[in-house]
């Protein structure tokens, strides 16, 4: 420890490699990313490493970010669309510390956005990378437990089974009621799980200008959508794909085209609908949009800015 601190007297002590992972690991992950980008939707295996958070907290996404991040990047991290949730703040602090990057809450400004369960409302641009945290990369897993079999099904494009889950939805609810992790076809070739984003976000994946990377740490798989990839959500001819809609608009910014969270306010059942994308909502409020509950404490500026 002493030698390290004397050899680097002018920098903060860092007892780990840049961006936490060692260089060989990052090379291995980058090779998997390149393979995944070359075959949109294909689940490329990679040697997932032990990370300083438990599986299910974004180990796949963190490893992807670590492999592609550089000191010039501007990093944003969201959890369910919000920049200020515990997990997002922790992961953002982690990369600020281990990768010396600037962090932001501004979707437009960020070069790497790590996300759990949302795609930001603001359209992404060329040059941006959206990193998804994926709990279960295999969309067929719920119906077919054997990995050997699902791999063969992907290899031979045998995707009839996925429709069984849609069939069950329609027979039970009279419509395709699945709302999150709604399966898609990438370039009409590979069946892909979009991670548990709401199906509201599925259309945003189609022909997106940014690079979309998906990392599953526990399952040791990386898959990707390069820019401008065609992405189609599965459906039946007589039950076409639809996204969620709300009768309400955002209580804070009056947005009627954003994904809304229902927030319970008290034990009496009072509730409000607010944008799940916290940055989108804040920008709209700054631009003068006023919702019916504007001024509610949820809308007050943070006393402590996110790090």
């Amino acid at each position, binding site marked *: 420890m002493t030698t390290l601190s004397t050899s680097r007297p002018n920098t903060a002590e860092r007892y780990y490699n840049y961006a936490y992972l060692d260089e060989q690991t990052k090379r291995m992950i980058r090779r998997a990313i390149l393979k995944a980008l070359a075959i949109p939707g294909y689940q490329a295996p990679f040697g997932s490493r032990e990370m300083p958070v438990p599986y299910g907290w974004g180990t796949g996404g963190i490893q992807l970010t670590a492999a592609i991040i550089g000191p010039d990047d501007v990093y944003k991290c969201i959890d369910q669309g919000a920049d200020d949730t515990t997990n997002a703040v922790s992961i953002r602090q982690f990369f600020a510390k281990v990768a010396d990057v600037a962090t932001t809450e501004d979707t437009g400004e960020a070069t790497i956005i790590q996300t759990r369960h949302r795609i930001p409302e603001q359209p992404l641009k060329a040059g941006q990378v959206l990193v998804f945290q994926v709990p279960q990369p295999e969309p067929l897993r*719920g*119906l077919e437990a054997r990995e050997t079999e699902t791999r*063969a099904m992907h*290899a*031979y494009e*045998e995707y*009839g*089974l996925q*429709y*069984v889950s*849609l*069939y*069950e939805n*329609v*027979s*039970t609810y009279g419509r395709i009621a699945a709302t999150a992790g709604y399966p898609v076809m990438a370039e009409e070739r590979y069946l892909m799980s979009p991670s548990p984003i709401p199906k509201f976000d599925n259309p945003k994946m189609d022909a997106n200008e940014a690079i979309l990377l998906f990392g599953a740490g526990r399952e040791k798989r990386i898959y990707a959508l390069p820019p401008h990839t065609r992405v189609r959500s599965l459906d*039946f*001819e*007589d*039950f076409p794909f639809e996204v969620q809609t709300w009768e309400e608009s955002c209580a804070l910014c009056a947005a009627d085209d954003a994904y809304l969270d229902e927030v319970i306010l008290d034990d009496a059942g009072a509730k409000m609908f607010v944008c799940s994308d916290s940055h989108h909502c804040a920008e709209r409020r700054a631009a003068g949009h006023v919702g019916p509950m504007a001024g509610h404490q949820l809308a007050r500026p943070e006393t402590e800015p996110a790090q």
Partner: protein
Amino acid sequence: MNAHSEIQAAPLLKVEGMTKWYGHIVGCRDVSFKMRSGEVLGIVGESGSGKTTLLNCLSGKLEPSSGAIQFDTRRFGLTDIYALSEPDRRRMQREDWGFVHQNPRDGLRMRASGGANVAEPLMNLGQRHYGKMRRATIEWLDRVELDTRRIDDKPRHFSGGMQQRIQVARNLIHGPKLVFMDEPTGGLDVSVQARLLDLLRELVRDLDLAVIIVTHDMAVARLMADRLLVMRRGEVVETGLTDQVLDDPQHPYTQLLVSSVLQI
């Protein structure tokens, strides 16, 4: 009379010198036969005689050590099934074949509803219209004499005989040319067994279906099969028309088998 031994018309299935070794143990040895469409072939024999090995080889699940199995596929004509590429073979199995397992849990998706189980082969063949699939499913549930109101119940909520009916519907809905049945009435009590056999016989005749049925139950063989292969220690010891084999068995083992049937 050797009319049964040679079939002049183009065969549906042609097996020549098929042998399967498990290491140095023989699974089945030098099996040859032909089958035409609409024919029901019974494979009988005691436990360990190689019935299941033969069925697995024929149904593309287990590659034989030597010999050829040719099938008249819709897509490629008469072709050696193990010479097809794996995706082509899997596709052929989905399109042209059905497989009814002894235990319905092996042949059904227990997490999906009965209706979804029956409709799945249609989805596998590219059907993407829910309403059409639903209608076909209801029609088939009706055909196998199940209550169509129970279409959305899970298989575990059905009795064993009903599960087997779901499995039968699932394996016939896509219009296969050949259906394999491995002891389809194995785990059922006799009255349910009789009703299911009755139903199977009716469907097979109506659909002019070719069936290979494996059984150790001579009564099932008598009711279902047009022709029999009698197996012992991996070899076919006697073949012939069912009534001929059961009424006038030639091979000592067949004689033993027939005389062992319990009478009430």
